[in-house]
């Protein structure tokens, strides 16, 4: 989950090879990859494919007859893919007015040419720090504090995305909703710290699947697992494995504690009401309800298929 640990990327867009050479030299000891673009078109294309953390942009670009530097800046900022990059603009001649315009267009800093190596490096590091903080904030807003799983708001958004992917490319998507059985009783009998550790343990079992699985904490003791590209039939195996692992868990010092969970499964074909994300959740919830009322600690799948008892 989260971003893989990679070196930050810096993209410099400047039409002067002399400046490229200089930037490469000055930034060679920074813990970042340096990429160089010689013009507007190349720069914008590279920004889109590289998704750099910091962009050093020559605002005087355009002398070469290409797009103006301000135009590149506004394109970077209006494209969802590149808008998060921290842009530092460089200029040999920018007036106060031009600097204000650059900052108002969304650049975070300005460096005058010719630049001092030490100052350039310090400003790049500062931009990388800000970029890192913004990324952390964005990440935190999507993650459940107790379990480290994706939270409900991320779940909702992601499920919508997966459902529309599913429609566009006709690949299946399956949702497993899981609920820890008699969770209130566990809390009452063993105390909330034990309840929390049960939730954490279940979350870690949920996270042991494929890289593409999307495990979420849906609510208090309820969890969602989105399985892109997986049919309901294979999802039953997945849920069954999780169910078994949880019921076989040992709880040191709590010999009487036995934790189980119930699972409801629906895939996109299994939704009768048009097949959107809401219907998918409703169908999985329905299956979960049936698993509960049939005695808990079991996996049910909704749809034309026979409900499958597996306990």
């Amino acid at each position, binding site marked *: 989950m989260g971003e893989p640990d990679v070196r930050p990327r810096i993209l410099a867009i400047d039409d*002067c090879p*002399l*400046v490229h050479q*200089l930037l490469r030299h000055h930034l060679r000891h920074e813990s970042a990859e340096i990429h160089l673009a010689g013009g507007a078109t190349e720069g914008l294309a590279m920004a889109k494919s590289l998704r750099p953390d910091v962009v050093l942009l020559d605002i005087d670009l355009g002398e070469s007859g290409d797009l103006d530097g301000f135009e590149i800046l506004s394109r970077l900022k209006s494209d969802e893919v590149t808008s998060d990059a921290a842009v530092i603009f460089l200029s*040999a001649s920018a007036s106060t007015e031009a600097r204000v315009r650059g900052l108002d267009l969304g650049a975070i800093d300005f460096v005058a*040419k*010719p630049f001092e190596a030490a100052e350039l490096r310090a400003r790049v590091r500062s931009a990388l720090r800000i970029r890192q903080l913004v990324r952390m904030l964005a990440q935190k807003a999507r993650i459940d504090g107790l379990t480290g799983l994706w939270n409900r708001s991320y779940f909702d958004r992601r499920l919508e995305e997966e459902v529309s992917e599913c429609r566009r490319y006709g690949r299946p998507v399956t949702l497993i909703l899981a609920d820890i059985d008699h969770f209130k009783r566990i809390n009452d009998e063993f105390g909330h710290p034990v309840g929390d550790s049960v939730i954490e343990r279940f979350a870690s079992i949920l996270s042991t699947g494929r890289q593409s699985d999307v495990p979420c904490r849906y609510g208090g003791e309820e969890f969602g697992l989105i399985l892109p590209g997986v049919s309901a039939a294979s999802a039953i195996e997945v849920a069954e494995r999780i169910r078994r692992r949880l019921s076989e868990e040992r709880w040191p010092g709590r010999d009487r504690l036995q934790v189980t969970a119930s699972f409801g499964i629906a895939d996109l074909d299994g939704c009768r009401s048009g097949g959107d994300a809401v219907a998918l959740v409703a169908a999985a919830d329905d299956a979960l309800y049936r698993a509960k009322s049939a005695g808990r600690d079991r996996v049910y799948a909704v749809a034309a298929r026979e409900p499958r008892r597996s306990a």
Partner: protein
Amino acid sequence: MAALAEMFLQQLEVRIQELREACRRGDLDTVRFGTHQLRGAAGGYGFPEIGKAAGEIEDLLRIRATDTEDSMGEMEISRGLESLESLFRSIAAA
């Protein structure tokens, strides 16, 4: 950094020749673009005087581009490039 500065001076010699040639051809856009680049980069290699001299030529060309009277002669640009070259020679000799 010393190696980098040396490399820059080597490239500069060629560049100045190219700019003078372009000026002789009357290709002032090339001269403007070239001096603009030097203005931005030379200081970074430790030669702010080169950047300043190049900037003066660029400014002349900029005025010339917007001035329809076309009062600025190519002589003046050519003289500017000459002094840029002699500046380079004095630095390279040092």
